[in-house]
């Protein structure tokens, strides 16, 4: 870029030509990681699809036990957090430190709201004996064994997603401190961008979990 002989940016590693190339490499690295994550969750989605095809009634009955309102609110919360994350990147690109802190804080807060609602949902499942294991009780089901399979997939998929949310909130906390210390400038804000990619990916996983677990068997009453 302009002034090739200008002093090197302190954040520019010696093996890159310039900050643009360094950023491209970082973003590409995150995308490669996200590709492995797509396949990681993909295996669970494949298992869900096959078992749902095998036991449609047991899965429909179990799915009816999930709370559409809480799941729907959580979907809105996560989409909102993706917006604030995108805005945090925008603020970083323009070097607006105050707005960056605001949007990173909002993203973290919405992430915590999501986990709070998830905790409420999980505790309901524990109270109603819908957690797979020796205490599983689903008397009204015609095939409790295979409904239990649904709840196993529910807890593994949403649990794994929640773990990713916790990691994401940790990333946001680190970014918040770095932004507070003024580490990001218009020339260098790669960590915000790259963490944003991760955050949006976690949002995408939920975009699929919500309809597949909560919604697609919702139509029509369940015949027990």
């Amino acid at each position: 870029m302009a002034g090739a002989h200008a002093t090197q940016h302190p954040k520019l590693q010696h093996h890159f030509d310039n900050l643009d190339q360094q950023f491209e490499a970082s973003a590409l690295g995150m995308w490669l990681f996200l590709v492995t994550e797509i396949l990681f969750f993909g295996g669970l989605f494949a298992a869900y699809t096959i078992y749902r095809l095998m036991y449609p009634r047991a899965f429909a009955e179990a799915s009816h036990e999930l709370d559409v309102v809480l799941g729907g609110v959580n979907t809105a919360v996560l989409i909102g957090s993706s917006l604030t994350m995108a805005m945090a990147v925008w603020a970083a690109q323009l070097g607006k430190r105050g707005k960056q802190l605001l949007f990173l804080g909002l993203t973290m807060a919405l992430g915590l709201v999501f986990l709070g609602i998830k905790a409420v949902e999980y505790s309901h499942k524990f109270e109603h004996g819908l957690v797979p294991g020796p205490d599983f009780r689903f008397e009204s089901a015609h095939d409790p064994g295979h409904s239990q399979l649904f709840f196993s997939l529910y807890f593994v998929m949403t649990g794994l997603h929640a773990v990713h949310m916790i990691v994401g909130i940790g990333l946001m906390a680190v970014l918040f401190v770095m932004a507070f210390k003024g580490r990001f400038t218009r020339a260098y804000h790669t960590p915000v961008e790259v963490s944003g990619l991760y955050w949006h990916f976690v949002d995408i996983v939920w975009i699929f979990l919500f309809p597949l677990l909560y919604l697609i068997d919702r139509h029509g009453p369940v015949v027990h």
Partner: protein
Amino acid sequence: MAHEMTAAAGNGGEMQGATHLVPIRVYLTIFSLLMVLTAVTVGASFVDLGPANTLVAVVIAVTKMMLVILYFMHVRYSSRLTWAVVGGGFFWLAILLLLTLGDYLTRGPGWLRYG
């Protein structure tokens, strides 16, 4: 330095040239579309469309995913190499899902008798 604000949208200024500055208006539009699609998918799930219920849910989820990837994740403005990596990821996911289902769905009539 104020003149750089205009240059920032392009490739100039002190800004990282590889990152694209997306106007807030675009982010708000995408956010609104995502919320509308969420409402549509919830609404559609309570209407009995037969096997199409699943199809509608998946098509809406894929649409939402595309909006997030292209705009929030900036892939629309990214290099061809990024496109190749993202596309490659979904190609491999397609192998995982389609070949697995290709096996299970062709195991004969007895396979789906449970449920």
